[in-house]
């Protein structure tokens, strides 16, 4: 059995990438470590601690917002740069992922690379149409949606590292929200939804995106299921119709905690709530402007 034999503590991105590539697939990046700690020794010989590279800041660069992959969820939950209505889903998702101590450890990049069915932040990121920046042999930006067509980790080549999450600054009249149904304050979602809604000047939905979390092994893009909102005012009745449609069409995976019928139904409810809140925030944003 291969077991972990060393820890490496690079202080620059270059050193980190070198250590990862020198590991020939058996070196693994570790940040918060909360998911890796349970997979001791599995085909990993070296851990490359990437928390000392200075990639934990939120910055506005060249017309986009760059969130360092090692930004901790706890910091993002209070991240003032992200508290605009159009991006609000992200701090909201970060704030309800695990408990305080877990949020102090888990990084945004880690929540993507170490995605599990119940991870909250990726759901928000998908609804916000985020990309990630990959460093390695072939540095590039990849839309998160592409990364999530299977488990993100399977999309990363050996020696590749997520160094940042990239967000488009929201335009006017844009609101977003993340809503999570959970049994207790610190719990995995039974169902979650993130939505971003753009309204036109008449208060009609000009654009939207909707992602469902937890109900299936991978995040579910439900934007099309909310399509009837486009061009319309997001009234209660219309939102209820969207909820109904989602409940009809989403096909939840097995979950020991609840029946598929229940999960489908509440997926509709959280989607409705997320859309309603996002739309309300979009209106707010307009009145603020």
């Amino acid at each position, binding site marked *: 059995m291969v077991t972990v034999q060393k820890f490496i503590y690079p202080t620059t991105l270059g050193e980190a990438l070198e250590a990862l590539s020198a590991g020939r697939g058996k070196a693994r990046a570790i940040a918060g470590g909360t998911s890796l700690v349970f997979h001791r020794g599995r085909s990993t010989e070296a851990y490359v601690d990437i928390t000392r590279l200075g990639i934990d800041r939120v910055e506005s660069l060249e017309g986009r917002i760059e969130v360092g992959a090692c930004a901790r969820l706890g910091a993002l939950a209070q991240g003032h740069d992200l508290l605009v209505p159009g991006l609000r889903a992200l701090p909201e998702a970060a704030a309800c992922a695990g408990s305080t101590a877990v949020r102090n450890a888990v990084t945004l990049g880690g929540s993507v690379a170490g995605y599990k069915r119940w991870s909250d932040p990726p759901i928000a990121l998908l609804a916000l149409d985020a990309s990630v920046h990959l460093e390695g042999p072939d540095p590039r930006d990849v839309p998160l949606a592409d990364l999530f067509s299977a488990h993100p980790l399977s999309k990363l080549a050996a020696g590749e590292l997520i160094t940042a999450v990239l967000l488009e600054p929201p335009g006017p009249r844009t609101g977003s929200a993340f809503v999570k149904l959970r049994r207790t304050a*610190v719990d995995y979602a039974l169902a979650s939804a993130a939505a971003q809604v753009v309204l036109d000047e008449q208060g009609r939905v000009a654009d939207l995106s909707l992602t469902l979390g937890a109900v299936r092994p991978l995040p579910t893009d439900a934007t099309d299921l909310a399509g009837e909102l486009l061009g319309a005012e997001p009234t209660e009745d219309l939102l209820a119709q969207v909820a109904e449609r989602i409940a009809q069409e989403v096909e939840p995976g097995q979950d020991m905690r609840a029946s598929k019928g229940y999960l489908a139904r509440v997926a509709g409810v959280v989607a409705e709530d997320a859309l309603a809140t996002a739309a309300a925030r979009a209106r707010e944003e307009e009145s603020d402007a």
Partner: protein
Amino acid sequence: MPDGAPATIEVDIIINGKAQTFRVDPAEVALDTLRDAGLASVKRGCDEGDCGSCSILVDGQLMRACLLYTGQLHGREITTVEGLGTARQPHPIQRAFVEAGAVQCGYCTPGMVLATSALLDSCPSPTDEQIRQGLDGNLCRCTGYVKIVDAVRQAAAELRSGRDRSGGDR
């Protein structure tokens, strides 16, 4: 590695202000290292990051010793309640926990005290809502949390007045 002879790594950690070097199996978890080092306050409750009994402060941030490889602590500063105060000379937070009736079996208490310390560090005048959020990962089965929230409120007041007396460092 020949014949599975276990590798060890050297990890330098400053624990409660004192620099220490540990030689550990790279797969060792901080909870084991710290308990082996005699830090009895770091309790084993679930080994899965869910109960908070093994809470420690890492560079001032509340974390779980069971969710960290010891290797991740290299170069970091750790605080445990042993570093805050003793039974005879308690830290104001520890004193508040005793006075408010927030200690029952006491197994969760060191973690609760550290969670309180981290909370009050970043938020010296928390609302009840902030207190409940700040301690949300530390389970207690004895108290029903009412007296724990009282203790945090009391500790916050005392720490604030202490700062006022000393001219304030904030």
